[in-house]
């Protein structure tokens, strides 16, 4: 049978050339794959930790500590045992996106998982296990490119020092590190006898997005919030609180990831195979078309080039260098802490969140009824997203 090849080869080449590979360089934004109301078993296994992070924090804000504990325990269990994960290998392959890996988050997200679990341990009267969590959190941030920003969460060192002092040890080194790390002023050394520990947070989470020809470059943008500080009011005390740490600063001072190099390589591979495919299709198409079906070697070489070009285009189209932009989007931007000495019994504690002029944003004021025990610490967690009044 004599095919009129010149008639179908050129359209085929044009279709292939018209671009299987996405080349737009617009931002790719994260769309949450599941809501907090969904059951965790309906979430893809690779997103389970992300779901637990969000649900754990949401529960902590609602003072549902059992649910927070359950979610964060399971998430940190995965986080701590991620060595040699097969999903990680999949994410590194040319033909899978980074988001195919089990989500454990970027280091600032991993830090926060341990930080929240530490708060819950302290709530349960286990300051040594709380300190263990704060230390592991600090380790998550230790492998930065620029060592100036390695393990530089002021609040984690501060709480390490406080827990150590409360357990009868010497926390002065950790306090000193915290004072050097804090970008918002020097936090005062809280006496170990402070028995009400108020963990505060405010602002909107860091946003992840992807740029680059194939969305292979992971970037961060800050969340927006008018809140810049807080005031804690209880009994006769009126404590002004500034942030200890800014998660946007932490997310953006780590330097490049190893995965960024892998994604860059994937992007080069995608681009190269696409270019080679284009060249082969054009030359093959031209060659085949100009031979007018004479069944000579030129005709066959043209067809061979077309086939090779097609394969190259398919390989290019299936190469996925996109960066993972799944993100723990209910995190705050700023985290802070205050330690108070209070007499036992029921007390009303008010937390006002302030704008950049130090004025309280009344719609965000939280009123907490707390019962201070006669021994041990009362641990209080307050977010600008917490309910307006809570009994703890």
């Amino acid at each position, binding site marked *: 049978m004599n095919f009129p090849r010149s008639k179908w080869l050129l359209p085929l080449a044009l279709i292939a050339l018209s671009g299987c590979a996405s080349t737009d360089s617009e931002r790719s934004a994260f769309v949450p794959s599941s809501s907090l109301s969904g059951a965790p078993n309906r979430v893809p296994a690779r997103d389970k930790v992300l779901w637990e992070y969000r649900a754990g924090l949401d529960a902590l804000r609602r003072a549902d500590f059992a649910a927070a504990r359950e979610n964060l325990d399971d998430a940190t269990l995965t986080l701590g045992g991620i*060595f040699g994960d097969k999903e990680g290998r999949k994410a590194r392959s040319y033909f899978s996106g980074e988001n195919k890996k089990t989500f454990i988050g970027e280091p600032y997200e991993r830090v926060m998982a341990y930080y929240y679990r530490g708060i819950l341990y302290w709530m349960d009267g286990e300051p040594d296990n709380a300190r*263990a969590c704060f230390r592991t959190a600090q380790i998550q941030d230790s492998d930065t490119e620029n060592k100036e920003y390695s393990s530089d969460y002021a609040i984690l060192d501060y709480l390490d020092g406080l827990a150590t002092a409360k357990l009868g040890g010497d926390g002065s080194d950790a306090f000193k590190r915290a004072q050097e790390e804090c970008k918002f002023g020097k936090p005062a050394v809280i006496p170990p006898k402070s028995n009400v520990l108020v963990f505060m947070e405010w602002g909107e989470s860091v946003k992840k997005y992807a740029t680059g020809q194939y969305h292979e470059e992971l970037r961060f943008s800050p969340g927006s919030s008018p809140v810049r500080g807080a005031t804690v009011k209880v009994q006769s005390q009126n404590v002004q609180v500034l942030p200890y740490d800014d998660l946007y600063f932490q997310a953006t001072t780590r330097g490049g990831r190893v995965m960024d190099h892998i994604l860059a390589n994937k992007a080069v591979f995608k681009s190269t195979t696409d270019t080679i495919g284009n060249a082969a299709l054009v030359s093959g198409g031209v060659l085949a078309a100009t031979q007018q079906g004479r069944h000579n070697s030129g005709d066959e070489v043209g067809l061979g080039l077309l086939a090779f070009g097609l*394969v190259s285009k398919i390989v290019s189209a299936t190469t996925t260098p996109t960066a993972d932009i799944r993100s723990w989007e209910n995190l705050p931007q700023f985290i802070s802490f205050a330690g108070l000495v209070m007499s036992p019994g029921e007390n009303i504690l008010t937390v006002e969140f302030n704008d950049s002029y130090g004025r309280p944003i009344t719609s965000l004021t939280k009123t907490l009824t707390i019962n201070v025990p006669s021994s041990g610490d009362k641990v209080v967690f307050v977010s600008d997203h917490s309910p307006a009044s809570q009994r703890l």
Partner: protein
Amino acid sequence: MKPTILIPSAAFVVALAAFSSGCASHGVQNPSGVPVTEMKADERGFVAGTGVESQDLVVVTSKMARDILNVPEIQRAQGMPRIVLDPVMNETRFPINKDIFLTRIRTELNGKASGKVRFLARDRMQTLEKERDLKQSGQVTSSSDPNAVEFKGADFFLTGKLQGMTTRTSKGVSDYILYSFQLIDARTSDIIWEGSAEIKKQGLEDAAYR
């Protein structure tokens, strides 16, 4: 068969193979999962991190129990020494159930040296006191004088500490943990025995997580 037909068909097959191999070559390992495997507690399983794990617990507590039995004050004690467990202090970066170490040392000692030492259930004092009160008030029967003080005092305290050092670089994470335990004379505060074990682990996460 003409070569002109062969070339496009072969190319199509190659294209198809390349396409399908791209999706599967780095393929899923254990796609059906791994059946539940029963392991020995002192065995290193296929699920492992650099933290405190069951095999560490077994190795450390077995060693400590053996050492305690060789302490002269225990071997040559007049009567049966009473031991109270004091919670272990965790100074590592790993949150753990601290009681599990002392529980295992206790069960090892009770299992292997029954009669040489006896442990006091101080963690159950609330329940025990409640029962004693019921007996004293005559609400329940008593086989002995309920007003006599029969709760035993401790001869020794067994306690311990977990301390750690961590290094994390681009080459991986390294965790060293020192497990130390002490037997303290309750009367004199002498440390009559101290034993330690150390474990170091290193690992490197998949590049996808770095």
